């Protein structure tokens, strides 16, 4: 454990550093989703998770960080753009659901949304 983090601090900035940032963001997002009772908080967690993943795509797709630097290497960026678009669409739909939920229950407490239980 220790040598891994130690090397992070000593090495020049590379893919692993980005991945660490992405991982931290991902975990924050996941924790946020799991703990927030407010729907909006959950949606924010989702955004964090998606963008944590996006950082990984960008890092792997970056021409500065890749060994085959002579190629254009836009695939990571493109996928990240897709993810952003999807996230926007998802946020729109999720907010609509939240609004309707609020209309129904006068609340945005996610724990009250348990009608889907088995």
């Amino acid at each position, binding site marked *: 454990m220790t040598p891994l983090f130690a090397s992070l601090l000593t090495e020049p900035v590379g893919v692993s550093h980005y991945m660490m940032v992405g991982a931290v963001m991902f975990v924050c997002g*996941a924790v946020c*989703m799991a*703990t*927030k009772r407010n729907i909006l908080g*959950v949606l924010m967690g989702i955004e964090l998770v998606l963008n944590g993943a996006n950082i990984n795509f960008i890092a792997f797709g970056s021409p500065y960080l890749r060994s085959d630097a002579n190629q254009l290497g836009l695939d990571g960026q493109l996928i990240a753009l897709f993810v952003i678009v999807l996230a926007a669409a998802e946020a729109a739909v999720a907010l609509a659901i939240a609004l309707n939920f609020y209309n129904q229950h006068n609340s945005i407490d*996610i724990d009250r*949304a348990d009608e*889907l*239980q*088995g």
Partner: protein
Amino acid sequence: MGNPETAIPILLGIAWLLPLASFTIILFWGRMLGRAAALVATSAIVSGFVLSLIALVGFWLPSHPLSSGHDDHISGGGLRVEGGGHALTRTAHHSLFTTHHSPPTTSGRGSRVEGLGHALTRTTTYSPPTTHHDDHHHAAPAYYAGDWYSLVEIGQLKLSIGYYIDSLTVAMFCMVTLIASCIHFYAMGYMHEELHPVTDHEVTLSNGDHLTRPGRFYRFFQYLSLFCFSMLGIVYAGNVAMVFIFWELVGICSYFLIGFYIERKSASTAANKAFIVNRVGDFGMIIGLMALFGSLGTFNFGDTVDETGQTQAGIFSLIRPAENHHRLQTPEAMVLASARDQQAAIRGSHLGEPQAADAVDAQLNNQLDTWREQGYGYWLLVIAGLGIFCGCVGKSAQFPLHTWLPDAMEGPTPVSALVHSATMVAAGVYLVARFFPAFAPEVLLTIAYVGLITLFLAATIAITATDIKRVLAYSTVSQLGYMMLALGVGGWLAGVFHLFTHAFFKSLLFMCSGSVIHAVHTNEMTEMGGLRHKMPWTAYTMLVGCLAIIGAGIPFVIGFSGYYSKDAILEQALNFTNHNPVHAILFYGAAGGAAITAFYMFRLWYMTFAGEPRNQHRYDHAHESPKVMYYPLVVLSVFAIGVGWSVGGLSLTGLLEQARPAGTLPTVEGGLLLGDLVIPNEHDSHLPAVKTPATWIAFSTAMAGLLLATVIYCWRKVDAEEIRSQFRAVHRFLVNKWWFDELYDAIFVQPTHFVARRASQVDKSVLDGLIDGSAKVVRWCSRILDGVLDRTVVDGSINLFARKTWGLGLSLRNVQTGQLRQYVMLIVVGTVALFALVSFFWSIALAG
């Protein structure tokens, strides 16, 4: 196409297949064709006749000119028989032959091999060996043999469609197709009632009405075509297996045709009888075939050349090898098969020696002739011969299997004419003639005696029969007996010649009787009489047939066809008797039979056509048959008169003489079993010392029979009724056909019925009880099992499984809380767990 080796097999092959084509057409489109079915069948058979005639006149005769030797004194009235004719003819007749046999023993032969599609035709041209005086009567006949198509080849067993064509085949093709053509034309007239729905007055239904059924005109011609195809197949066949196939086809066709009026009980019984009795004979034939094939390993008659160019010896050259001057000898394979123990002993004595195989072979070769002389394998030859003859006994209605043939009269008359002249019964005689070289002297003697018994028995029964067709049927049986007798006493030519002449006059007689029946609507001669005024064509053509069958003629000058053939038989019988005084009855029986033949034939003619009408009503309604029916009669009567004549050097006997099997002419003295038996040279029977007495005896017996018939039935000097009452016992004996049917009924049919009834009882009580009981046991068992096993074990386990699944589902249900946050937690924890698990095992796997 120019040379006969390729042309004749093709021509005859087409003539053979045309009736099959006609059969197929009528089979599929018969209903649509209606009257045209007759045209299809008739044109097929007439084309067949034309092709056969082309094969004979266009190809066979130019390449095999008839010898002008001794044969003419049969056909030419015996004028040339005197002096040195005998010696002269022997040298003359062989010299122009084209022969065809395998191992070259004499010099001066060229051989050429021709491939023709599948067919392999091989002809060896034989030049007369001028230096070998001994050889001249051992010459093999000219023949073409080959295979068209191989059906099956399993190890040694080879079944093929092939041909064996010699002058007998060609002549048979012409005769069969000619007579069948006449019969086809005749049947167009005779069967016209079948064009419309028919009311059968002989069948009464349970409600008292007569049966009305659709006409079966087309079906009749369909069967006729198949019949002709089968018969021609037998004649064309190149091997015994093929003969057997077509032999059975002829049997099934006769079954169809005899049972044509199948609704009549008598017809269906007669058809069954014909079929079953023939099976008895065929059983023997199969034994004969097995004996031949098991030892010789071939079915082929003649020598053929296989694909590799090897000559395969046929049955005939194995039994009568050319090295042995075509004399009969037990084939090596039969000797070895029979002396198996001795072979084993020799092999045993050489066990372990170096070059044991050569030593064994040498010793076997040394021993072979000794064993052959000791008679090893001879029994096998005799059994093979007797077996083949057994099949012929069934097909040609010889004693003791003669009973089916008179019953076969239940078929329409054209069928009777066909069955009794050119096809079915001829097949048996033909096969005996074909197999003649393979018969040991003992077998020949058996054949002669069977023939004698048959001819006498049938002739006596014919005296008392009153059904016009039955008289003719018994006369057929009797004439077939003559043919067998002739073949048995060594008269190959006489027997075959009689087969041809008989075919013409017997088909004529049957068709005349059919014409009479057509006119008066009854078979009973006691209701006929005086019909010659009403139907002169029929009456006088039938008179020709009667004169031909009794062998009428002016001795040594000229005569009807039967005169030549019957005299030839009696001459050879007398010749045989001269050499074997023990068997004198063979001649006297045959001569006596000739008298009886003359008597019953003219009894038939007088009762039918002469005198006063016995039944005025029937007489008034009688009328001459239509032209399509009596023209064939005229054609056939021309042949019945003249087929034995020699015209411009051409004669039937000369043609047939070319086919005489190799080595069967010279006198044979002694078989291995009957040492003092002599089968005399047939040409010796034409010596004046034999011919003159035989001819006079034949003439006088025939005239005596004719005279007796005239006295009783024409002049009525003696009352037939009175004679009948005087010989009541004899009359009853003959009317009941020697009680053969009753005898067979008692010996075979009743015991079979008895056994069948007992078997049926056993079946009903024991077997059915057993089966019902076991069914009950099974039902009981299954009920127990249903209660115990099925409900508890099987159902229980299934239900348990279902309950457990249900419970599991219920318990897992609690996990689905609907709490989104919980789900997220589970996803995260699950993913981490999975990741940890995979990375753990991943590292183990890498380490491993």
